[in-house]
């Protein structure tokens, strides 16, 4: 009964996206719409001494300039500002709250005008004088001030002694720079004010209900006063997990002027929001002469702001992945005068596993072992940190399938030994790992007697394909063609969903569809059983399925009643069921996705230009709901990995505490010509424990391991080990 699940179904929202019909947050119209333009602070720390808006206010078409001095009321307790994914420790940033400057690029005024051009022009006329305080923005300069985050990891054995006595020991710092998400859509909010004073907020977010609750708290509103909608999100990658400041400013503007308003940040201003924190990852590995690991230590030192402790699991991957009797881990934070970092694709893992897998490659070189063989020697069928078996783990198969597809056996291990004309060829590999998380989600299904169903949920589709997989699972569970399923998402008034992140939405939304569909089936069976002479009279729910527009006996589909007949006979036009799905707790298994990544680089020997010519990513992630969109997810992750390895870096001028490349010409991301062959392999990974459908999620795993595989390939090509990312060609010159 799987007509759609597991197939390469094209995106159900595809037509809207290729015709320009899909509307994003900053595109919803409203009568008398005003436009807001943000004025940002140009110092990293201090206070506003004087803010002169008088000239800006003289411009024809300018209605107001909102600042901390004249804004409507905002909540004064931290709890009201803490959204669903805010760090536990700290005091969230409050835009236009007072005269304090906490980071460069902080919003300090919102110019509101009848049109965008006017607001933008008038913003240049706002005059600001500061009282500047001392500041620090350099992680490496402040490394000695790193403070250990609480919850220290439990050490195993005695790593210090084991490292000291190791047959081969490798220890190094790997430096991951600050990176910005740079989704293609600008951060935007359109706040539509209606005559009753209620607000509909079209926001670029990964969680409409998170933003809804946050706004109700910040503005002391009742749930009915505000509705948050976000049907299409032009990329987010973690940047839309927490409410962004423009949603507060747009709401402020609407409340102050009692009119609809749109606030869109510029690309430059987007660099004042969250980012992947720069980290120094110190990894030490000790091995015995047989190539098995005897000790692993991993210390991560990461940036956070002065006002919040943002910390992610950088070191836990080294803790769980490989067999090692001795291990020690630490996560430290350095508080700087910058905005708080936030989750960015595979937070913690993209950085932490990059360091671990580069270190493993260096260890393999020192041991004169093939890098795949080293990983197989340390392979663990149990999560090493929790000592638990996995619900499923086909990583061994990933290594085998990936290596085979790549042609790894033809690799000459000697650096600089492989060539293609004027280019040095390098082959590198790495392991990837991510969590398989799942969260409570509720879904409502409204089935009408014409055989059409509307499936709705507050979950977002940030390009991941939620619309499509929800439609696929619903079509199969309801036994209807997918054309008869319409999916509504990302409206705060729809059934409960968490933010879309952590790769948990596929499994979470799919199972919510299943339980809601079962409620629908129960109702249909009740109606069908009452028809005189019904072939399903007295049938148990578990013995029935919905298939081909009918409810039928599961083992004998000929004993069936069409949904239309059942509903007509029962005098029912519409069956509407809503159900919250909660996953049972399983403390006996570890839940992870894995991958083996193989990369080929070609390096011009004279110019040191590096090209990633081939990547094979073999992924074990349970059952794949949609092989077309799933492949795209992994491919996108690989492209992110190419960017992380070779291009992406937010560069700060520490003399001014200011980002120097806050645009997408100087912050480099991969372009079409940077991306060549990417081969995605989904390894069969049946999983009877994780959930009914055996789904794990794909959003993050695609990037993890890719930067290390490329760095290791660069070493193999050139003999140069670059541990400071990104690997730009200047680093190969000396």
């Amino acid at each position, binding site marked *: 009964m799987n007509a759609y699940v597991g197939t390469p179904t094209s995106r159900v929202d595809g037509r809207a996206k*290729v015709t320009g019909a899909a509307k994003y947050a900053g595109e919803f119209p409203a009568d008398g719409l005003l436009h807001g333009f943000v004025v940002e602070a140009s110092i990293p720390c201090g206070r506003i001494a004087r803010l002169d808006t008088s000239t800006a206010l003289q411009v*024809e078409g300018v209605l107001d300039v909102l600042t901390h001095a004249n804004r409507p009321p905002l909540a004064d307790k931290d709890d009201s500002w803490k959204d669903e994914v805010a760090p536990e420790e700290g005091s969230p940033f409050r835009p236009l709250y007072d005269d304090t400057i906490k980071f460069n690029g902080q919003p300090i005024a919102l110019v509101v005008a009848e049109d965008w051009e*006017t607001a933008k022009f008038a913003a240049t006329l706002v005059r600001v004088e500061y009282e500047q305080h001392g500041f620090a923005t350099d992680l490496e300069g402040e490394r000695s001030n790193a403070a250990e985050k609480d919850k220290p990891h439990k050490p195993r054995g005695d790593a210090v002694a084991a490292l000291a006595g190791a047959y081969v020991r490798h220890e190094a710092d790997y430096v991951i720079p600050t990176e910005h998400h740079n989704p293609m859509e600008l951060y935007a909010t359109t706040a539509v004010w209606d005559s009753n004073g209620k607000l509909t907020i079209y926001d670029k977010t990964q969680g409409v209900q998170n933003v809804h609750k946050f706004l109700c708290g910040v503005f002391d509103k009742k749930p009915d006063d505000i509705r948050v909608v976000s049907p299409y999100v032009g990329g987010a990658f973690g940047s839309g997990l927490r409410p962004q400041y423009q949603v507060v400013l747009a709401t402020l503007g609407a409340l102050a002027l009692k009119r609809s308003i749109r606030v869109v940040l510029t690309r430059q201003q987007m660099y004042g929001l969250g980012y992947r924190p720069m980290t120094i990852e110190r990894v030490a590995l000790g091995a015995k002469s047989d190539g098995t690991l005897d000790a692993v230590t991993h210390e991560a030192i990461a940036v956070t702001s002065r006002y919040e402790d943002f910390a992610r699991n950088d070191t836990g991957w080294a803790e769980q992945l490989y067999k090692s009797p001795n291990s020690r881990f630490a996560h430290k934070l350095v508080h700087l005068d910058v905005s708080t970092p936030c989750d960015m694709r595979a937070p913690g893992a993209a950085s932490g596993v990059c360091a671990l897998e580069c270190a493993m490659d260096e260890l393999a070189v020192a041991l004169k072992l093939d890098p795949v063989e080293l990983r197989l020697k340390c392979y663990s069928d149990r999560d090493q940190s929790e000592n638990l078996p996995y619900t499923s783990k086909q990583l061994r198969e990933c290594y085998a399938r990936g290596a085979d597809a790549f042609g790894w056996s033809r690799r000459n291990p000697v650096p600089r030994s492989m060539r293609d004309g004027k280019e040095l060829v390098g082959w590198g590999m790495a392991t990837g790992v991510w969590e398989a998380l799942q969260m409570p989600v509720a879904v409502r299904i409204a089935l009408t007697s014409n055989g059409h169903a509307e499936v709705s949920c507050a979950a977002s589709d940030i390009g991941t394909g939620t619309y499509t997989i929800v439609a696929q699972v619903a079509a199969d569970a309801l036994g209807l063609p997918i054309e008869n399923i319409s999916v509504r998402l990302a409206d705060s008034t729809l059934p409960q969903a968490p933010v879309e992140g952590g790769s948990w939405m596929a499994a979470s939304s799919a199972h919510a569809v299943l339980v809601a569909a079962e409620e629908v089936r129960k109702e249909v069976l009740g109606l069908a059983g009452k028809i005189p002479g019904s072939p399903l009279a007295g049938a148990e729910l578990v013995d029935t399925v919905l298939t081909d527009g009918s409810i039928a006996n599961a083992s004998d589909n000929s004993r069936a009643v069409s949904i239309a007949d059942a509903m007509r006979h029962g005098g029912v036009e519409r069956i509407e069921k809503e159900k919250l799905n909660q996953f049972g707790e399983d403390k006996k298994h570890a839940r992870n996705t894995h991958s083996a990544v193989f990369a080929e680089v070609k390096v011009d020997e004279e110019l040191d230009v590096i090209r990633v010519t081939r990547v094979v990513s073999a992924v074990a992630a349970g059952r794949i709901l949609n092989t077309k969109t799933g492949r795209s997810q992994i491919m996108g992750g690989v492209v992110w990995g190419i960017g992380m390895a070779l291009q992406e870096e937010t560069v700060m001028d520490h003399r001014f505490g200011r980002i120097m490349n806050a645009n997408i010409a100087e912050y480099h991301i991969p372009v079409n010509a940077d991306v060549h062959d990417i081969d995605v392999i989904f390894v069969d990974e049946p999983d009877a424990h994780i959930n009914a459908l055996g789904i794990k999620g794909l959003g993050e795993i695609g990037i993890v391991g890719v930067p290390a595989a490329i760095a290791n390939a660069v070493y193999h090509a050139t003999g140069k080990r670059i541990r400071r990312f990104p690997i730009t060609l200047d680093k190969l010159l000396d």
Partner: protein
Amino acid sequence: MGDVTHQISERIPIHLVVNGVSHTLDLVPWTTLLDALRDHLALSGTKKGCDHGQCGACTVLVDGRRINSCLTLAVMNDGAKITTIEGLANDGALHPLQQAFIDHDAFQCGYCTPGQICSAAGLLVEGRAKDTDEIRELMSGNLCRCGAYPNIVAAIQQAMGQP
């Protein structure tokens, strides 16, 4: 500061033919073609990703040529024929590139997609791209943060009738 109100009040009448429909607009002279389309003609299919000609999301066809609409002022295009993503489908029938983008899953979030498709439409007219590498090179002005590039190339090849 001088008379700032004067600086902003001067509006210029502009005539544009967008997707076959004539429009006359009164715009301040620094209005970009992109903002004219999005904010003044409610054609939000053309996307703003950077406003600086760095991302290509705003690509439209002006008199058949692909152009970053954020890098040209509306007044500079007075009288021009402009095709946006909303004008590519013919009476509801998708343009071959639009269908190919769906078939090859050449997008995820969809935000760069109108610019990619308009850019690809311009590329087909130019006739310069003969192989995969040339398509990659000549489509490199259109960023896709979701990383759909290999699928974008495959979609363009389908529309070009290449295997």
